[in-house]
């Protein structure tokens, strides 16, 4: 009953809140006011229902936290289905194998004749998977909130576009160059700003991204300005001429390989000396430096490595689209990549991949949803932080193997 009353109150409050914006629309040309009262009913009803659920969820959350606090060694932590799957090594390995096989035969499954739309969409999605995994290093592992990640993507894309246009360098030469250029960019930018506090860092990276975009727009003699750079060559395949479909499929494999490499590298790093230092910095900067972690160097390495992947995949992006202009590198794109990392679960590789695929593929296949896409993103980002801050999939910590017996014998010290 208390719930009902509160929900009712909240419903009414939201009817009040949304009253001017949702009900009234002033048409300044015809000089008419449109009254949409039905919207008010909707707003009230939705708020009521959501408030109801909200209260239950918050209560459940509080109860769960209390339980954890009361019993710090839960015998079995309740885990979601996906979580259990991700934890079970045998099962997850098999699933991985299935996923890999599906990924490899994917182009042959979906593209027949002229139809290579699905392949193309998948290439775009996989590009964002790599971006998500790259940002995952910076934000998810090292906890550096980078709101200007898209700038590194732009550096990679423009590096390829300019090198191929002006110096006739091929895709395979430019691929590492794009990555390195981005990394260099990251190091130069990172140097002055990485000692800033977390939230200052966010605003400064955002600023850098807008500077990058402005420079790309204004310096048209070099970067082509807002008109962009057209006719960027696609990746070459041992000098053979490929038609559009073959090129798409070829690009698909390139970016798939890139995804695999990124996963491999991130996985190795996560459980390495560097990876642990990143996470420690994310968790507690002061404790980390007090334990001997060099903050500047560690942060810079995470920032630069994240930038490296963005640059790498930027080259693929430019080659895949044949055309780039500054419009592809806006703040909203940065926010989108960030959303992937956040929704997937900071630091979790599988989670980021699923989130990236979902965020890129769903709007592509569910066109009706497109209008509400950004609205839903925003709401989901907030809800995720409140109810499931660990993301879709928990970042599982590796269990290290250690020799208990040896330790036992050696109890005397060293």
């Amino acid at each position, binding site marked *: 009953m208390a719930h009902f009353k509160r929900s009712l109150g909240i419903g009414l409050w939201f009817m009040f809140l949304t009253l001017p914006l949702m009900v009234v629309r002033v048409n300044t040309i015809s000089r008419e006011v449109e009254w949409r009262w039905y919207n008010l009913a909707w707003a009230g009803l939705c708020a009521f229902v959501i408030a109801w659920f909200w209260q239950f969820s918050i209560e459940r959350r509080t109860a769960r936290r209390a339980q954890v606090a009361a019993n710090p060694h839960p015998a079995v932590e309740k885990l979601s289905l996906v979580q259990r799957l991700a934890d079970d090594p045998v099962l997850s390995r098999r699933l991985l194998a299935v996923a890999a096989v599906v990924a490899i035969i994917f182009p042959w499954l979906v593209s027949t004749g002229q139809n290579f739309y699905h392949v193309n969409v998948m290439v775009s999605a996989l590009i964002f998977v790599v971006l998500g995994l790259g940002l995952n290093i910076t934000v998810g592992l090292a906890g550096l909130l980078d709101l200007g990640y898209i700038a590194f993507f732009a550096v990679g894309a423009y590096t390829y576009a300019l090198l191929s246009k002006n110096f006739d360098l091929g895709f395979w030469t430019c691929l590492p160059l794009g990555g390195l250029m981005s990394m260099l960019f990251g190091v130069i930018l990172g140097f002055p700003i990485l000692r800033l506090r977390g939230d200052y860092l966010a605003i400064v990276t955002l600023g850098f991204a807008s500077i990058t975009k402005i420079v790309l727009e204004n310096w048209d003699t070099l970067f082509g300005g807002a008109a962009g750079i057209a006719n960027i060559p696609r990746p070459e395949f041992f000098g053979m001429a490929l038609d559009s479909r073959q090129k798409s499929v070829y690009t698909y494999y390139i970016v798939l390989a890139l995804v695999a490499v990124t996963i491999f*590298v991130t996985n*190795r790093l996560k459980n390495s000396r560097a990876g642990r230092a990143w996470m420690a910095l994310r968790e507690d900067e002061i404790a980390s430096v007090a334990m001997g972690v060099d903050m500047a160097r560690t942060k810079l390495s995470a920032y630069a490595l994240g930038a490296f992947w963005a640059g790498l995949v930027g080259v693929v992006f430019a080659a895949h689209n044949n055309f780039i202009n500054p419009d592809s590198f806006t703040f909203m794109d940065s926010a989108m990549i960030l959303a992937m990392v956040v929704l997937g679960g900071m630091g979790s590789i599988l989670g980021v991949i699923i989130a990236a695929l979902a965020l890129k593929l769903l709007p592509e296949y569910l066109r009706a949803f497109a209008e509400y896409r950004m609205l839903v993103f925003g709401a989901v980002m907030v809800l995720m932080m409140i109810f499931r801050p660990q993301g879709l999939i928990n970042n599982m*910590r590796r269990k290290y193997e250690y020799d*208990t017996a040896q*330790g036992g014998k050696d109890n005397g010290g060293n």
Partner: protein
Amino acid sequence: MAATKGEKLLEVSGLSMDFGGLRAIDNIGFELFAGEIVALIGPNGAGKTTVFNCITGIYEPTMGDVTIHPPGGTCRRINGMKPNSITSLGMARTFQNIRLFPAMTVLENVMIGRHCRTGSTIIDAILSSRRSRREEKETVDKSYRLLQKVGLADVADEFSRNLSYGAQRRLEIARALATDPFLLLLDEPAAGMNPQETHELDELIVRIRAEEQVAILLIEHDMKLVMNISDRIYVMEYGKEIAQGTPREIKENPKVIEAYLGEEVHA
């Protein structure tokens, strides 16, 4: 890292720290010798933790000198150095308000302590080079042994946030020990512990001194613990040093009794 007993390890002189015109600590000086357990006591707000922060490089002191004499190394003035460099020189600390890495496992927390004693790079990690594999193994083994020492080996794979208060304090000690220090700075290690846990901590500290051959500088409010294990005690009040001596001397010092008026010094 072995130091001969009696060798001077740390020397602090004329140490002062201002916060926006407010002098938090004023002209503090003390020294510490190998094999000693020295306690720094005083009422809340006396500036004890600030002393720690100045020594470990979290703050840069306004005035004064902090000099360390690493066993077998050369003596160095360390104020103004970065905390991580100071840790590499052989001083490690714990925190009054526990600062673990909550989303990392207990073992990983300790492994972070090994960071400054290892050197494999990102490239090593990606290629899984011999060096990186060797260091990883050493790190895990050493960390696990330290966990056994502080009695946390059975929860090595738990997230550190799930540990009890007392266990978290012991984990902080293990993490600090992982940096191979010659001097360990413990900031209120017994805070929030029950008498039983405090008693165990008492034993642990003494054992660590013996087994790891570290000297210990300790901030603590639990007078029983302090009087039990300290070789010498410095007392601070309002940022100033008001007394020093053996536990017995301190107990009888009228200034200390006055500072602690009402508090149980004779425990």
